């Protein structure tokens, strides 16, 4: 049963979050919403944009790695008996690797869009253009990262089935490859949306 992640990750983190929200701010209020809003408002857009870049590359590579081990273990096992499948089925591995490359490209593009602006001197908050830019780079990174994560998992599982089916019957390879191509298009969707989202960032008026 999946009791272990629930007991050791979700429950403690929920308890920690709830304790945090209740304990900060004005002691007179149970949950000090205005304090929390100010906390959010004062978070630097550079935090968000850096986190977005990290997610873009990190999650993409997680997805690619997931896919590569899923395909690779089946491929190695199947190739012992049927060595001819190795050369053709490397395409599945290459599709998974492409997912990692998408993540790196998007991360590089996103980080070139980060510019310096100063916060306002009175309250220490950034103006709306800077906040917009920070959020959109974060959003682009999350979009690209999660899209590539599931794309990598998908291509990996289909690639594993493709290797095993090819070992039994070599006419199946091309047909299952079509399924993989559709799967790898999912990563591209994430990249495209990410690039569009971060296309209009400007850090000052």
């Amino acid at each position: 049963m999946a009791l272990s992640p629930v007991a050791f990750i979700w429950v403690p983190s929920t308890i920690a979050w709830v304790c945090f929200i209740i304990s900060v701010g004005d002691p007179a209020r149970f949950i000090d919403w205005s304090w929390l809003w100010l906390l959010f408002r004062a978070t630097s857009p550079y935090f968000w944009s850096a986190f977005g870049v990290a997610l873009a590359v990190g999650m993409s590579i997680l997805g690619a790695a997931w896919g590569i081990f899923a395909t690779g273990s089946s491929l190695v096992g199947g190739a012992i008996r049927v060595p001819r499948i190795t050369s053709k089925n490397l395409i599945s591995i290459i599709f998974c690797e492409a997912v990692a490359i998408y993540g790196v490209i998007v991360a590089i593009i996103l980080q070139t869009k980060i510019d310096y602006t100063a916060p306002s001197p009175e309250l220490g908050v950034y103006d709306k253009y800077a906040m917009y830019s920070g959020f959109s780079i974060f959003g682009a990174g999350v979009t690209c990262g999660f899209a590539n994560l599931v794309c990598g998992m998908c291509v990996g599982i289909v690639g594993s089935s493709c290797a095993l089916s090819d070992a039994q019957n070599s006419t199946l390879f091309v047909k299952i490859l079509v399924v993989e191509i559709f799967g790898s298009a999912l990563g591209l969707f994430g990249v495209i949306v990410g690039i569009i989202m971060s296309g209009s960032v400007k850090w000052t008026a």
Partner: protein
Amino acid sequence: MYGFEMLNFNIKDGYLEAIVRGHRAGLLTVADYNNLCQCENLEDIKLNLTSTDYGAHLANEASPLFTTTIVERCTAKLVEDWHYMRCNAEEELGKFMDYCTYAHMIDNVVLIVTGTLHERDVQELLDKCHPLGMFDSIATLAVASNMRELYRLVLVDTPLAPYFSEHLTHEDMDEMNIEIMRNTLYKAYLDDFQGFCRSLGGATAEVMGDLLAFETDRRALNITLNSIGTELTRDDRKKLYSNFGLLYPHGHNELAAAEDFDQIRAAMEKVPAYASIFNKLGFGESQMLDKLLYEEEVKRCVVSFEQQFHYTPFYAYMKLREQEIRNIMWISECVAQNQKARIQDGIVFTF
């Protein structure tokens, strides 16, 4: 979570699943069986088998070939494959594969005990045991004279120990009690195996659940058929049926009350899955039943390979290889005794 095991299955077991699917690709096809059926003597059979997966094991056999030699070499191939996979298996798969072999252990125990009862030589009995079900202290089974000693001396150290502890008696072992012991052990084993597969969850629980349900229903059917006309009471018979399967619990009540083949047939036909088997039997016929049950088992084992990312292919591969070895034995016997007209009666085709 059911359906999500495909994300992590390949971490531990992807390599071995690919290996077992490779072995499945090497099972004998209809063309191979046709070639074997047209052989004139055992040398021809050996020649034909050399071009299949069995080649490496049969190639160096010396000239006076016997049926038992061929069967032994073919079983050695299964054992070698199984041993390789078992050595490379991680903990859960390893435990699953061990469960698959406990059935052979039970058969070996019963073989040695029965053989000792008939005063056969222990060494000769050990040679006849199935290699997948051997354990270290198996030779000392010959020393025990009743079931309590059997348990205390030998079986308590084996994996069969938890299956045994319910029915310890001081009775001497005779044919009837040994059969009852075999079926009691088997019942406990199947219940335990089913519980283990359920705890694994996901596709393994579902597909193995189906295969084990068929196995247990088939054993219930065979127990009922074999105990018609013996002194086994209805309650005793009911105690030998497992606690799961399509026949549990209402079918078991009916089977326990059945006294002849037609009543058994009526009880089994109430389950739609088995009605189709009994439809192929003519009215009053019971000889073909064995072959039909084997065919059904083979069909289910082949179908279990259709889904990926579960442990059932290992169990199914073992069953399919064993059926294949039974086929080869039948063909070899028919060829050796010059009864080629009856060859087609005994073969169960895999594909």
